[in-house]
């Protein structure tokens, strides 16, 4: 039993680190713009598709690191582009307009992909995984890779946000968005970069997810992306460390739910968890209530 639990913990870490990477994108955008970027889950899906295209269409076999970097840059650029075209004109519009636009953008991306490629694709093996048995547990090198890359990206982001001028500007804008432009900080550049970073992390999550569960389909943005959004809300949307915490909590809850209950209960349990947490902690575990100014 104990080793079964430990085994499930490793699976939970794998799923949780992917959720956390996607949740970071939701949280960063919410932090700077106070807006739910509902299109983010579909950027994750595009990341998986970009990885698939790079792995199957090119005549040469690219190393995994190169694929990961290219996908992150491409998806980051797509995220920044969406912000430039669809969200920036609405920055002073009512908040609801921005949410609807995000929802619409997500649907456009999802259904365009669905119309072009209606059937799921299988991801070729990009990383030759071996199994390590240790103390009654089995862990694959792929799991180590996924958890390691995610943790490295998260630590990198945390350093970027806490130690660099860019990170300071990001934190400042989520603290007080009106004063920051008066201090001479180029807000548009800052927001573009935030979208680039968030979407890039989502793209990386797409690559890692398709390595772990080698099936790529247009619906995965909705399936996984919305779950990651829950993770961001559980942790407190707008809080970067909260997003990571929420990702791992959700991963653990889902893996344990499937381990002990029929798998059809997974969604029921994860969304009920969200509802319960919002009843008792309305702004998430690490979130701050917004400042109310009259």
């Amino acid at each position, binding site marked *: 039993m104990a080793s079964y639990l430990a085994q499930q913990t490793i699976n939970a870490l794998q799923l949780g680190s992917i959720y956390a990477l996607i949740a970071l994108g939701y949280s960063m955008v919410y932090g700077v713009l106070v807006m739910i970027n509902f299109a983010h889950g579909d950027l994750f899906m595009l990341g998986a598709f970009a990885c698939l295209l790079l792995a199957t269409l090119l005549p040469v076999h690219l190393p995994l690191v190169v694929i990961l970097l290219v996908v992150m840059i491409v998806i980051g650029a797509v995220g920044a582009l969406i912000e430039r075209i669809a969200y920036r004109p609405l920055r002073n519009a009512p908040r609801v307009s921005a949410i*609807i636009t995000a929802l619409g953008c997500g649907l456009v991306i999802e259904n365009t992909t669905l119309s072009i490629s209606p059937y799921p694709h299988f991801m070729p093996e990009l990383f030759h995984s071996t199994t390590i048995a240790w103390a009654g547990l089995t862990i694959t090198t792929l799991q180590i890779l996924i958890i390691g890359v995610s943790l490295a990206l998260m630590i990198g982001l945390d350093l970027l946000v806490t130690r660099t001028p860019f990170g300071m500007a990001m934190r400042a804008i989520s603290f007080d968005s009106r004063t920051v432009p008066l201090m001479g900080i180029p807000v548009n550049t800052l927001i573009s970069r935030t979208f680039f970073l968030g979407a890039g992390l989502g793209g990386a999550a797409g690559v890692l997810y398709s390595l772990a569960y080698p099936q790529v389909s247009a619906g995965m943005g909705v399936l996984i992306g919305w779950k990651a959004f829950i993770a961001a809300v559980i942790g407190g949307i707008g809080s970067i460390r909260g997003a990571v915490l929420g990702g791992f909590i959700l991963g653990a809850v889902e893996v344990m739910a499937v381990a002990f209950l029929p798998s059809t209960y997974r969604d029921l349990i994860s969304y009920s968890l969200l509802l319960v947490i*919002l009843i008792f902690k*309305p702004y998430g575990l690490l979130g701050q209530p917004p400042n109310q100014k009259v």
Partner: protein
Amino acid sequence: MKEFLHAAARCRWALPALVVLGFAFCLACEFFPIFNDYSKVVLITIGINIILCASLNLVNGYMGEFSVGHAGFMSLGAYASAVMAVNWLPSTPMELPLAVVFGGTVAAVIGLPLALISFNTRGDYLAIITLAFLMIVKSAFENIAYVGGPRGMTPPVLTNMPWTFFWVVLTLWVIRNLVYSRFGRAIIAIREDEIAANAMGVRTREAKILAFVVSSFFGGVAGALYAQLNFFIDPRSFDIVKSTEILVMVYLGGIASLFGSVLGAVIFTVLMQVLQPIGTWRMVILPLILVLLMLFRPRGIMGLRELTWFLPRRELKKEPGQ
């Protein structure tokens, strides 16, 4: 022509007469072959969509909140009515109206605690909670064997044009009277500035909860009519895509406008039928329309305006600009 329409709108008997005529026409359609079955289904779908759109407009348009859970209420209404029609009172004459009222009531009863939870927080959190609600309803029905689980249910085909017309008129009438009452002014005040409304002594919490419950009741009614129309319902019929369709209708027709809701529902339903041949590309074009609307005309076609016919008579007596 314009003067004539304005004068007609002000006449005491014009609107009731029009409603009676419309009902008589729908009744006639049941007995005489005026439309074929396909056109009838499209017309009933327009009616159902008007109910959905007008009821969501109460929360999203008049109150300015953002709920994405309307398909969840539809689902509750559909399943509740289907259970009633299949298991409890098969083939009785009052089967349809009772099932529809039951569907609406179940949706409203579930809507109340949801409103209590969601209005503890503000703004975007209603979107999050209604989203969670939508997903919970879907996976709950998938796990309840009594209602068929993922395979769904096959309720009898009962919805007809007269009953749909009746519910459309009732929905529009109730929402119109609510919106132009003291309660309606409260929810509009919430949309404009909730803190100021609170400071003026408006009981914002009660107004929000009432609006949400009324909206969920009619969402359930629409779901019940939908269930008895299509012969088949399953949990996936009421997912986030369905909610998005209703949102497209609301924001296309125009926020805070009942005529806008009617217009949005008609345009959307007809467009969906016309665009049938292009398959999944439909769901590319529709959100694209929504995005373009938000960028260039964020309030929709009729946003914040109303056709004279949809105003109560005492509003007409007021001077313009009052």
